[in-house]
């Protein structure tokens, strides 16, 4: 069940009514049942996996707490990661081993296993790991299994985040939630914004981007540029739309999820970008990968940049079992490390020139990274980079049509313009934007137009890009 379908709208409305009509003590069960039902619409066979992982983490956290003699947390982490490793990385490691043997002159052709990746496994694994580490570090655990099951399975965040830490939601789950106008109003507005971003913006860009990265396509510099910019915009609108749906849906039931995006293309440095892009994942990588590694070698601060690269490489691998993703992570890691070393004077300067230069460099780094991220293989990525540096092709793009260029350019100009000016515009027009007239006339009219645009441009529900991770 994809968020942008009428089926989801019906599902959401039904659960909303049942949840708020149900007695307060049974509301969490309503949400748990709805969440498992939601997951079953993808593939019911993996319900057992979700349930098993939930039961294991709850039990293991209690075991860690019950033992006063520093019970090890790593077996629990290993169990979580083994599920992820099996489903997501088995073929990757087997194929890599096969390539290594081949490179060494051997002739081993490993069998590719037919393993289907359960939806959301990357997200609920990270959530499980975070829970065990937090509990082991002294955070209060969930006392009731029911509440923990809701934390693990609550459908708005189940498939693609935000990756919520127990401390952020425990009180909301354990407390009594009540229906209020502000939650419903903000929740529906957020869902509508998500639908607009996904259907009107991301899905309009998707076919144009697919053309540029066509399998067996002949790379052409202009195609590569248009396709890469288009993909950078597509993935932002797609994923932030998913987060809007998640945050908005949760809000309808009285939950406040952490934000996942904060105008990332406004970032003035690589680090600033990661503070604005997929914020809950960046935080996870920082707290559970980078910080422990840095802490372990705290006597050798010169290792910090290296751990940054390692952490980002793992972040890339988390996105997909492919070397292009690893390279994408390492690429970002290198610039994050550079920001703390060689490029520190530039990124820490506050002069206007340095700020503009910092933004430009960050955008080049980010969008070049998107090329690696989107290319289906290293060979294709190399082909595109070669075309880019040799300016292959003529003055007109070969694959990406001019209408696509118009769509990409139009959305790019609007997005960059909005990213760079939104705070100034908000400050300038604050009295107008917050006036009663705007709230009662302009804003509802604007949302009605947005809804009409969503309906007209909705051709067929397309899965979110991040569902594959």
């Amino acid at each position, binding site marked *: 069940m994809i968020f942008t379908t009428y089926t989801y709208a019906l599902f959401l409305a039904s659960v909303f009514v049942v949840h708020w009509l149900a007695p307060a003590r049974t509301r969490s069960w309503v949400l748990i049942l709805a969440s498992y039902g939601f997951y079953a619409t993808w593939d019911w066979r993996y319900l057992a996996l979700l349930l098993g992982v939930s039961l294991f983490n709850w039990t293991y956290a209690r075991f860690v707490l019950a033992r006063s003699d520093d019970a090890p947390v790593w077996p629990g982490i290993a169990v979580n990661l083994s599920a992820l490793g099996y489903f997501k990385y088995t073929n990757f490691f087997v194929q890599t081993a096969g390539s290594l043997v081949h490179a060494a002159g051997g002739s081993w052709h490993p069998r590719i296993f037919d393993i289907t990746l359960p939806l959301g496994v990357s997200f609920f694994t990270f959530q499980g790991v975070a829970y065990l580490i937090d509990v082991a570090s002294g955070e209060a655990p969930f006392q009731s299994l029911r509440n923990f099951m809701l934390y693990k399975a609550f459908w708005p965040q189940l498939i693609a985040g935000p990756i919520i830490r127990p401390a952020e939601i425990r009180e909301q789950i354990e407390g009594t939630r009540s229906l209020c106008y502000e939650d419903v109003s903000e929740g529906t507005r957020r869902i509508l914004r998500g639908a607009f971003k996904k259907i009107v913006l991301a899905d309009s860009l998707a076919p144009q981007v697919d053309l540029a990265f066509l399998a067996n396509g002949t790379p052409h510099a202009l195609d590569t540029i248009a396709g890469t910019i288009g993909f950078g915009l597509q993935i932002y609108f797609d994923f932030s739309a998913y987060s809007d749906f998640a945050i908005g849906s949760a809000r309808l039931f009285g939950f406040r999820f952490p934000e996942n995006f904060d105008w990332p293309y406004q970032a003035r440095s690589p680090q600033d970008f990661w503070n604005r892009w997929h914020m809950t994942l960046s935080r996870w990588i920082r707290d559970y990968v980078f910080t422990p590694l840095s802490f372990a070698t705290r006597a050798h601060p010169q290792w910090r940049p290296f751990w940054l690269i390692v952490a980002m490489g793992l972040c890339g691998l988390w996105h997909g079992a492919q070397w292009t993703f690893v390279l994408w992570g390492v690429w970002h890691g290198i610039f994050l490390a550079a920001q703390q070393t060689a490029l520190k004077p530039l990124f820490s300067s506050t002069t206007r020139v340095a700020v503009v230069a910092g933004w430009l460099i960050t955008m080049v780094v980010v969008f070049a990274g998107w090329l690696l991220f989107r290319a289906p293989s290293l060979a294709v990525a190399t082909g595109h980079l070669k075309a880019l540096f040799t300016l292959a092709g003529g003055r*007109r793009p070969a694959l990406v*049509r001019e209408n696509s260029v118009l769509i990409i350019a139009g959305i790019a100009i609007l997005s960059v313009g909005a990213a760079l000016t939104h705070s100034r515009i908000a400050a300038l027009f604050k009295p107008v934007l917050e006036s009663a007239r705007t709230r009662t006339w302009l804003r509802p009219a604007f*949302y009605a137009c947005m809804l009409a645009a969503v309906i007209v441009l*909705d*051709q067929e529900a397309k899965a979110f890009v991040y569902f594959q991770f």
Partner: protein
Amino acid sequence: MTAKPDNSDKLAHRGAIVFLGVFTLLNVLAFFAQRHMQAVDKAGRALYARFDDPRETPRRDTSTAEHLEQYWRFIPDARTQRLAIVVGMSQMYWINDRASVDRTISEWIDDAYQSKGVRAFGLAAPNLDNEEALFYLLATTVAPETHPYAMVYGVCFDKFRNTDIRPTLQSFLLRRPDLLRDWKRIAERYSGRYPQAAEKMLGTLRDIEAARNKVAEQSLESRLRDRLAAALPIVAARRDLNGKLLQILFDLRNFVFNIKASTKRPIIGARYDLNRQFLEMLADEARARNVKLLPYIIPLNTLAETPYVTSEYEGFKAWYAEFTKARGLRFVNFENLVPAAEWGLSSGEPDFKHFSGAGHKRTAAAVGEAFAADLLEGMQGAAP
């Protein structure tokens, strides 16, 4: 203290009323916009179709692959007479400045050969690519009543830019398990000789399979859409409005980039190669199925500037000559066949690919003459 919530409640209620009011207004606008678009569309169709005699049995798929199933039963019975299917892109069916006496290429061929014991049936579709041409060969040859003796195919260079089987033909495939099996068998058979084309065919099968699963999954979704469409005009009109928006974007693109029908469009390497493989596979498979493949390079308006890059088009013709020679096919090039007076206008410029009724008649006569020996081979009293 109590005034504030009251005021905000009032604001919220007013906001909801404005939202519903604007949304209702947009629905009313969508309703009238759709009605207008449908009226214009209907008038256009009526204008073009006024020359078709509804009493006459169709001699071609006039739906141009949109409703192939409906026209399939009109294919003359190949068990009782020789059948030639005439396959190609829009040149095969579109008639500029159509008059009541005008017929399409396939109909003229049928007129000329019916008395000689050969029936022709037109299977054309806009922007038909070579995978789709192969589809027509396989679809007709699975049953003896539609198994053609010959397949006349108008080969068009710029259609080597296109790939994929259109959804309406995919649906046709989906409904015929024997054809699906045949499709898979052919893909596997040619995986060594034409790897990209064979992989593409298997990809088409995967698409069809995915579409089949989707249909099952989406039954609730489509029911919900239908229900909403019945209640909200904007949902009902969304396809028409979407099409209109795309048309506006298309016009805007042409304006911004100064694109005309004659603007050069380079070939797309990978798609060009794929279509070449499909044409080769078509030739091999036609031979294997005992169908005479009669291909020709389609006529072009020599007075109009084409969007072809000259060197690429010359390269294509050289390859095509080699291809026909290697497979023992007749090399027929009608590039300069139709004189300037027999073409029409497209967007104010001379149409480089679609001609008037006279052009259809001339092309059909040329096809009939060029392939007479093949069409009438072995027939008693036949004079090639």
